[in-house]
């Protein structure tokens, strides 16, 4: 089971859990409509696009409303801490929530005691929290952007807004040295997918792949395009691809969808996600060896 946990900007939404479904206007989880938007719903939407294409079990979602005050986030941590053993996901992807250091430590402690540790993925504030409590290396995949890799490489920083100025660069070309430093300081997960003008995939301190084409600079403007990459990575790992391959394919797919659509700075992330099925149909077989064959059987 792939479980994606995070908050959505719906202040009155209680904690909900269940299989992710979708219609034209929203995601449907536990009977509730969740608007397509930047954040965890974008992550869920992209993961669902992958599972639909591969015809495997859809992601399970654990969501709560929180507009940033942290109120809902506490329910999310607590539910995971109390129930992760029973849920027993194969892949656990943590996304937006209010960073809470003690609750993150408690959650990781519970997960360490499980008979079978899930493949653990973190992005956004979950990644910040894992690094801040010194438990980054317990995670299998982080998906930082070019600013967040500077944060992971800064021994003292507890938030990307407070990293040392000399580490920060809008230029993704600094990523290789920051990746190496993040691993040295134990601020990295086993695999890093650094999202930027060049996407870097690194394991154990070494860059194992880069993705540069197609180059679609406008994607940087569009809120949620990092969330979609992480959602795809989670779903491909759920489909038992090796994390490295999952990361490479996801980086390629996002770029290909952006190019196929002809994105502009005013494109919204859902419009890009709509192009994933076509991108997968045209490329996934050659990129990954995962080929969907349709057979017509005549009686």
């Amino acid at each position: 089971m792939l479980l994606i946990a995070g908050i959505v900007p719906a202040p009155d939404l209680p904690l909900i859990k269940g299989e992710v479904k979708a219609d034209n206007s929203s995601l449907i989880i536990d009977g509730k409509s969740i608007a397509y938007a930047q954040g965890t719903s974008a992550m869920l939407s992209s993961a669902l696009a992958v599972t639909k294409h591969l015809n495997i079990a859809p992601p399970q979602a654990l969501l709560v409303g929180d507009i940033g005050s942290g109120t809902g986030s506490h329910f999310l941590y607590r539910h995971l801490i109390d129930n992760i053993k029973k849920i027993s996901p194969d892949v656990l992807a943590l996304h937006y929530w209010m960073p809470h250091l003690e609750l993150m430590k408690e959650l990781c402690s519970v997960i360490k005691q499980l008979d079978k540790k899930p493949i653990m993925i973190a992005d956004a504030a979950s990644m910040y929290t894992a690094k801040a409590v010194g438990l980054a290396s317990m995670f299998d995949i982080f998906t930082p952007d070019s600013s967040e890799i500077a944060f992971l490489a800064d021994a003292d920083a507890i938030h990307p807004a407070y990293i040392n100025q000399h580490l920060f660069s809008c230029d993704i070309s600094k990523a290789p040295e920051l990746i190496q430093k993040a691993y040295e300081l134990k601020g990295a997960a086993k695999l890093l997918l650094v999202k930027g003008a060049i996407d870097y995939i690194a394991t154990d301190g070494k860059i194992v792949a880069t993705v540069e084409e197609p180059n679609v600079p406008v994607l940087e403007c569009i809120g949620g395009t990092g969330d979609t990459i992480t959602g795809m990575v989670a779903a491909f790992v759920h489909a038992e691809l090796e994390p490295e391959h999952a990361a490479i394919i996801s980086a390629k797919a996002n770029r290909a969808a952006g190019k196929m659509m002809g994105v502009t700075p005013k494109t919204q992330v859902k419009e890009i996600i709509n192009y994933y099925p076509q991108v997968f149909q045209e490329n996934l077989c050659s990129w990954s060896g995962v080929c969907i064959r349709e057979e017509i059987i005549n009686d």
Partner: protein
Amino acid sequence: MFWDKVKSRLVGSTDKSKVPTRTAAGSGLILFHVVEDAIKAEKVIKEAGYTCKLVAPPPSLRKGCDLALSINLVEQAIMERLLASSEVPYVGISPLEGTTELLQIVKITSFDNYTMVKAGNMKITFENDTGLIVNTSGGGCPDIPYLNIQLVGKKLSEAVRPKELGFTLCSLMLDRAFEKALSIWEGEK
């Protein structure tokens, strides 16, 4: 007598040579000129439903009195709003470790009829002709999806500032980008 009362409420050791450990609240300090303000601030923040603890600030961060509030640094924006609205004076807010200044780097990128302004890891993109905010991106704080919904589709000149809407450091960074975007837009008009 008053100081004894205060000391009894400090977290952990009152040995001021020791740096306070990270608390559940976590990793940021509000610094004050006088002890009374620290006490008032604690009350205001707790009444608003947020976590904070009175601590002794480490020597490197001591700017005023010997009492500070430990907060979750990510919640800096809402803490600033609470203290401003209740008129509790404070010296500043600092991370417990690392650098003490928010990133100041702002970068501007042009795309045909659009401009993207990036402050730290936060980006805001507007349409040059209309000043319409067409996208926000970057950042992993929990108010980022909410800010995106609140800002996209509004004009820079009419939108509520991110620092007024948000709760976190990301909202402060996005506000810097917003402020720059607004000044560019007003300059172009």
